[in-house]
């Protein structure tokens, strides 16, 4: 390891970095704003998705048997469902238990004691792992023998699944636009610093510096811009998370907002990587464009 080279390189980076403080501030600020917006967006998206998932995860399929269904048929259905990898759990609710449940749910408004006969059929209560598979599982069960009816909250599932896919698609577009705009601003900023140093760059080229050699300090500069910008952004986001979020939760009591669905360390890592990547990429592009002319 040639420490002289390392020292020289770091010296160059530091020198460039401190010389154009104003432009660095612009680039860092752009990264910070982008990452704040991106982070807030990802956070809200994760929360909404979590909200949808909470609902979806509680969804169950009720399987009703015909009144003359044999125990044998019911066992066959249960066995088939237990083997199905999509199915999370199968619970049997007998006629009697069903009646008790009904009584509890209606708080005695329906006087079940008037009934001379239990009108409820036997039923299974089925839960699936992935809400997206509810419909297929329900269809499969409907075809089994002895099954009279299969009931699940069809519209809610469909709506929520649709909402999820819309969120994902909109998310990708929004993120792409964010990154593009930030990339353009940063690469223009770095282009200004490249322009300010064009004499130096041309001299470097005249004494035999390779493009990679000329590029390296700029790339490092872009990386630092991205890193510092995203660290600042994360500071701001963290502050917002602890100061504004509780107020928002209070302000919207009818929505069960739950920030715990956001995996904070992963989000932080993603944002920092994104910031650094925009910095590196945009400086790479703007220096490259200069060197090619």
């Amino acid at each position, binding site marked *: 390891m*040639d*420490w*002289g*080279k390392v020292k*020289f390189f770091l010296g160059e980076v530091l*020198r460039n970095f401190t010389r154009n403080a104003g432009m660095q501030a612009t680039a860092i600020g752009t990264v910070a704003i982008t990452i704040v917006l991106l982070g807030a967006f990802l956070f809200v998206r994760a929360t909404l998705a979590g909200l949808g998932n909470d609902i979806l995860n509680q969804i169950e399929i009720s399987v009703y048997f015909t009144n003359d269904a044999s125990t044998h048929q019911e066992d066959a259905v249960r066995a088939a469902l237990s083997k199905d990898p999509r199915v999370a759990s199968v619970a049997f609710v007998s006629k009697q238990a069903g009646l008790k449940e009904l009584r509890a749910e209606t708080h005695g408004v329906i006087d079940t004691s008037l009934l001379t006969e239990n009108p409820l059929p036997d039923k299974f209560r089925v839960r699936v792992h992935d809400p997206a598979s509810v419909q297929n599982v329900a269809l499969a069960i409907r075809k089994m023998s002895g099954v009279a009816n299969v009931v699940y909250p069809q519209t809610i599932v469909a709506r929520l699944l649709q909402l999820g896919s819309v969120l994902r698609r909109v998310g990708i577009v929004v993120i792409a636009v964010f990154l593009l705009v930030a990339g353009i601003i940063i690469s223009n900023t770095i282009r200004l610093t490249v322009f300010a140093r064009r004499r*130096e760059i041309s*001299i*470097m*080229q*005249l*004494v*035999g*510096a*390779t*493009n990679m*050699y000329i590029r390296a300090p700029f790339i490092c500069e872009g990386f630092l811009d991205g890193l510092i910008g995203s660290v600042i952004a994360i500071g701001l986001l963290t502050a917002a998370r602890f100061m504004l979020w509780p107020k928002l939760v209070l302000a919207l009591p009818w929505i069960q907002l739950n920030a715990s669905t956001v995996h904070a360390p992963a989000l932080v890592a993603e944002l920092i990587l994104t910031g650094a990547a925009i910095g590196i990429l945009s400086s790479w592009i703007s220096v490259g464009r200069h060197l090619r002319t």
Partner: protein
Amino acid sequence: MISVRNVSLTYPNGVRALDNVSLEIGKGDFVFLVGHSGTGKSSLLRLLYHETVPTSGEITVDGIRVDRLKRGRIPALRRHLGVVFQDYKLLNDKTVWENVAFAMQVTGAHTKDIMRQVPRALDLVGLSHKSRMFPGELSGGEAQRTAIARALVNNPKLLLCDEPTGNLDPSNTTEIMELLLRINVKGTTVVVATHNQAVVDRMRRRVVRLEDGKIVTDEERGYYYLGLGQGQVLSG
């Protein structure tokens, strides 16, 4: 070492700086390039290290076809030659020492080699005592000598000097020319574009004369002015 064949150069603004120039310079030669201001001396030198490309013709330097050089191969060419630029081209925010060291750093030289060669090059041009100064603090001659030190520091096979004594006093000029001679004796090919009549006339080396972008004479032991001896001056 250098082979220039039927080279013409027309700048984008329409100025025809070189017109069908052909020139051979052997390994270890010492050549003066003379001619009026604006006759294309700098243009010819710039072609040799690929700062400009010829409009037509072939250029070979140290076995490399410079006129057809791919962008990625340019640095390798330039590392093999030292150039003293007419306008020095020093980095203003680096000290004399750093400017000279820089030419080695870009080649990826080891720090210990840099620490050995830079003081030697500065010593050769007599600038050891100014090594911590910045170009802005130097006299014209000192800046010029810094540029020379930078051109020398990599021990190039070919040294191209564009007016290397333009800002030097006579005693400095003599020293620098002697330095160039010593380097030449050690095997480096040296090409010097100059207006300095005294130097050319005293040294009696090969003189290539340009006029309006054409080579008009090429003498083995020539003078600054065609056919004239030392001390004689053309009037008018």
